[in-house]
């Protein structure tokens, strides 16, 4: 009896065990289903200042690949540097029938798009602010800490000038409204306060235009022939200041620092050929993946838009001839081809 019971119990256990085994296999990882439910068919729209410059094209290529991979729809709008066109594009997008679930916005200045971003959030759209800070609590800011960026530029120029130089620095600012220009300036000044023997002798605006940058730099060099370093606030126009330096035959004397997106032809090629001495550049992949992570998080969070507004600052690095390596830059063409596949 006892043995029978034991045998029965053993058999039952075996059968149960056998029965349980496949049941365990059926109990799948809940992740993929939840992920698909939250992500599939979701619309992500990117509105940069323009779709024509390296960073925007890089973000778009990486975002497109990622959004497609989770079964979403990715679109871009190209305001072509016009604040009005950008506002119009955002208005159209949030009022259309196929309104996006996540809106990624690069703001032209601190305030222009604040109301529109609020409207978008009220309609249930998550807003991710990128690259250019604005006075608005978006669902996340992903991009550079421009104050820190300015500090890195100033540190580079102080180092580039060296202790035995004239210690005179020129700035070619962007304009007086864009947060990137204002914060960059503030960051530069912080470092210069710590190095009081370094002086800013001129700080004209380029209005982000290369020809203007060249003309103001020519004048700056004319007035201060012993300048040892120049910080141009964007590599989109720094070709102008660099050409002025080259024309004056002062490439060896003047240390030119700028900032850019780290694209191969725009950044690394120009560091290699001596157009720029140092470029504080954004690590595009990390920055874009931070956007992707925010998109994935927000779409699954279930939180209403406007709940939190974290700053996801990107890592930046100062690219110089000394530390230039094949991984310092990214290649736009390769990236775009990868996105098409």
């Amino acid at each position: 009896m006892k043995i029978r019971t034991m045998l029965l119990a053993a058999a039952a256990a075996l059968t149960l065990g056998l029965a349980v085994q496949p049941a365990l296999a059926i109990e799948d990882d809940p992740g993929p289903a939840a992920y698909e439910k939250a992500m599939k068919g979701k619309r992500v729209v990117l509105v940069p200042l323009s779709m024509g410059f390296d960073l925007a094209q890089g973000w778009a290529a990486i975002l497109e690949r990622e959004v497609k991979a989770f079964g979403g729809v990715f679109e871009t709008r190209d305001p072509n540097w016009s604040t009005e066109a950008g506002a119009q594009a955002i208005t159209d997008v949030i009022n259309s029938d196929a309104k996006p679930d996540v809106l990624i916005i690069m703001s032209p200045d601190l305030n222009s798009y604040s109301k529109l971003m609020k409207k978008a959030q009220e309609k249930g759209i998550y807003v991710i602010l990128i690259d250019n800070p604005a006075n608005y609590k978006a669902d996340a800011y992903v991009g550079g800490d421009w104050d820190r960026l300015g500090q890195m530029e100033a540190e580079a120029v102080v180092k580039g000038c060296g202790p035995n130089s004239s210690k005179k620095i020129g700035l070619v600012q962007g304009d007086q409204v864009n947060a990137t220009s204002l914060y960059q300036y503030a960051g530069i000044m912080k470092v210069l306060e710590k190095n009081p023997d370094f002086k800013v002798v001129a700080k004209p605006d380029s209005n982000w235009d290369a020809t203007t940058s060249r003309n103001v730099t020519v004048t700056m060099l004319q007035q201060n022939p012993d300048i040892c370093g120049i910080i141009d606030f964007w590599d989109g126009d720094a070709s102008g200041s660099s050409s002025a330096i080259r024309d004056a035959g002062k490439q060896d004397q003047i240390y030119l620092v700028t900032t850019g997106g780290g694209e191969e032809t725009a950044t690394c090629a120009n560091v290699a050929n001596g157009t720029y001495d140092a470029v504080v550049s954004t690590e595009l992949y990390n920055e874009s993946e931070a956007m992707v992570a925010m998109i994935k998080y927000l779409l699954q969070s279930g939180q209403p838009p406007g709940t939190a507004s974290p700053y996801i600052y990107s890592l930046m690095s100062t690219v110089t001839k000394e530390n230039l390596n094949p991984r310092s830059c990214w290649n736009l063409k390769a990236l775009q081809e990868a996105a098409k596949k």
Partner: protein
Amino acid sequence: MEQRGQGWTQERIVFALAVVLFIVAALGLRGFADPNNLIAIVRSVSVLGILALGMAVVIIGRGIDLSQVSVMAMSGAWYLQMLNDGRPEGMALLTVLAFVVFIGLANGFLVAYGDVPPIFATLASGAVVYGLVRSQFIGSETVPLPPGHWLEALGRMRLVTVPVEVFLFAGASLLIFLFLRYTTWGRYTYLMGDNFQAARTIGIPVRPMNLLRYVISALLAFAAGLLTASNLFSINTRVITSTLLYDIILVVVIGGIGLSGGKGGVRNVVGGALLIGIMLNAMTILDISNIYQNLIKAIILLAAIIIDSLMNPRDEQTAQQGDI
């Protein structure tokens, strides 16, 4: 016909103003009168001046070309893009040249045969040129100059320490001067600008003349684009959103070429360009921020237009609808 100065013409006012400004700046600003700074002034306006020469030819014959900056940036960018893609030099140059001539012809055709007011025809064609080249032919806003290209050498070239673009501006000025002053077609330009109907009635080929003027303007724009590329070793098409187009009109109007046509010449363009150059240089030395520089330029443009409309009032007998 051309206005022969009696007393204070606008041209003389501008000239006097430029001299006064020059003396004040030379006395008051450190480093302004340095020969290198003076060369830099001429150089800084040479691209602007070349564009203004084209604009002058169009305006003197009654019209305006708002597509200039677009043609300059996009033709240059497309040319560089083709070189970067490995196309042979000659083919790239000829393709873009043909494109530029076609744009000039199209502008002229719309104005001469389509009776579209030039201000609208060229505004639209400029937008088309930008959109077409930007979307179809170039990948990025900034197109770099391939290393070792002849434009690099041109940008580095100096004749007796003076940058070559100063001579190119002088050469272009001379050519346009000879065209306007000594060729029949040049004289026609004044007649057309002065009284279009009369010019047509006496048998001047006004329609082909319109084509010619817009083609000249487009070609000069292309030349300005190449020169920009040789300076900056790249072309940034974002220049289209800058105030360059207004600066060109500013140079022409401030120099004393009446917007209603028929008056002025190369002298006015050179005078206007130098005045603007001196002004911008002095403002930069004074470290005046861009916002105020633009404000000052805008006020001067406004004043110049008001003076222009007072000195060259619209001729009700010859004015046409759509004239600027």
